[in-house]
């Protein structure tokens, strides 16, 4: 079965890619399987300078999900380009670089740095990290700021820009519209929902940062709803994510309007989850009456 999908700037052999932050820079998972199997790889967020992230504990399990507050720990964009990307050059899998920052200028610097590498085929603009004090989600919850940062980063880059949206907003369509009008080539949705857990013994939040981002199967219905709502209003390619653990979940995202999907938290539960989903996908598509991935995209939208 034809699993390939075409997105702006990206020809994917299948629609499955590991989500940013859940796969490092690929090296750890390359020990488990051949990364050529993947549709694409979204690498961990890069900032202009190295960031050490938040204090620990940084994760806590929740019902069918988890909270994390890593805090964008990364060695800085120049280090990533010099020391992490070369190991990925042996694969023909497209690399999508996640671009983060505290200020618009920092986002611009990171995007510019990636411009000089031929390896990065698209950027994912991270305006939705809930776990940093400055920047991050503040850009993703204000349509004006979201639009500004999209415009400015787009101007610094010659590869397609996918803007990663935060679900922590009242009206997702408003933000999606703002970034689409600002020149985003696609959307990536959704990032984590903010949440908290409190330890009954210590009476304190489990995560040192107090608040973390909720991911995993628990948030899947929120992701499906938001992708569906955006697709109803805006014709723009979407990389869907939020709690995917199996090929049936992938089909649900495709029906909602995603053109491809990213798998995040499930990598922790099963490091082989991406290749396993890729292997199961043809049978699941066939079972529900589809002859290709492209055939299923957006089919959850009934013309009323």
């Amino acid at each position: 079965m034809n699993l390939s999908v075409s997105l702006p700037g990206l020809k994917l052999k299948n629609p499955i890619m590991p989500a940013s932050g859940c796969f490092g820079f690929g090296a750890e998972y390359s020990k488990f399987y051949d990364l050529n199997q993947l549709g694409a790889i979204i690498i961990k967020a890069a900032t202009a300078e190295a960031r050490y992230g938040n204090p620990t504990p940084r994760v806590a399990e929740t019902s069918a999900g988890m909270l994390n507050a890593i805090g964008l720990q990364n060695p800085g964009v120049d280090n990533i380009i010099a020391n992490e990307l070369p190991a990925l050059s042996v694969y023909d899998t497209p690399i999508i670089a996640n671009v983060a920052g505290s200020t618009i200028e920092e986002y611009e610097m990171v995007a510019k740095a990636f411009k000089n590498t031929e390896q990065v085929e698209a950027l994912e603009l991270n305006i939705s990290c809930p776990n940093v004090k400055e920047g991050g989600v503040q850009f993703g919850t204000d349509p004006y700021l979201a639009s500004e940062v999209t415009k400015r980063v787009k101007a610094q880059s010659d590869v397609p820009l996918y803007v990663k949206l935060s679900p922590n907003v009242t009206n997702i369509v408003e933000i999606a519209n703002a970034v689409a009008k600002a020149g985003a080539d696609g959307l990536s949705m959704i990032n984590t929902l903010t949440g908290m857990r409190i330890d009954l013994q210590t009476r304190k939040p489990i995560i040192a940062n107090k608040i973390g981002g909720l991911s995993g199967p628990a948030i899947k219905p929120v992701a499906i709803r938001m992708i569906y709502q955006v697709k109803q209003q805006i014709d723009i390619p979407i990389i869907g994510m939020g709690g995917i653990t199996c090929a049936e979940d992938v089909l649900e995202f495709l029906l909602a309007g995603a053109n491809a999907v990213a798998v995040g938290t499930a990598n922790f539960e099963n490091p082989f989850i991406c290749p396993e989903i890729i292997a199961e996908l043809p049978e699941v598509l066939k079972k529900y009456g589809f002859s290709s991935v492209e055939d299923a995209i957006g089919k959850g939208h009934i013309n009323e």
Partner: protein
Amino acid sequence: MIRKANLTIVHHEKIAESTFLLHVLSEASTLDIKPGQFIHIKIGQDHSHVLRRPISIADVDHTNKIIKIIFKTVGEGTSYLSQQKVGGKIDALLPCGSSYPIDNLTMDHALLIGGGIGVPPLYYLAKQLVEKGVSVTTILGFQTASHVFFEQEFKALGDVYVATNDGSYGHSGFVTDVYHAVKPSFDYYFSCGPTPMLKGITTDLKEKQGYISLEERMGCGVGACFACVIPSVNGGYKKICQQGPVFDASEVILA
């Protein structure tokens, strides 16, 4: 190299209050498992628990390909594990993390200091040290008498001192109190236990060279997610699941 294994429980025993010993059978050879490493266990059959639980390896019987793990029930994950029966399966990533670097060290005498659920990995270490002809002195600390385990097992390998916080068994107080009372001579020390204990030990023994094993809430367990980190003396963080859990005591900063 880390693999995903389907292990079979062949022995299940409660060895102290809330403390369980499981023997699990591996299909693959266990020869690559080194003391200090851990296995990362999936909890449940569905996706209700999305995070695996890191459990240290207490011993390995290479002839029969059996891995022995000891854990204390402290939450949902460990409670689930404690309820598994002989014949049941465990989905685990193994072997994970770094090990006590005993192959690179020359020594006559090792001091092992374990606290609570930090005791298990020291047993596999003690056995390997004794096999190499190293004398082993062990100091074990527990909260109270009902929590004490493996005293006899360590006794078969060398001198053992046990301390309980409440004085209900052995020496009264902390492992560091025992150390100062006994003053054993040694070339290297190896320790695993709660961070306050490790902090006390590394402070009191700062003139000596030693290795410590750390515990932290983990995500992926393979070094990809940056959830479990410890500040490094060289700035930045080290990843506990991948660069640890065993570190040279002088390379990390304990809180």
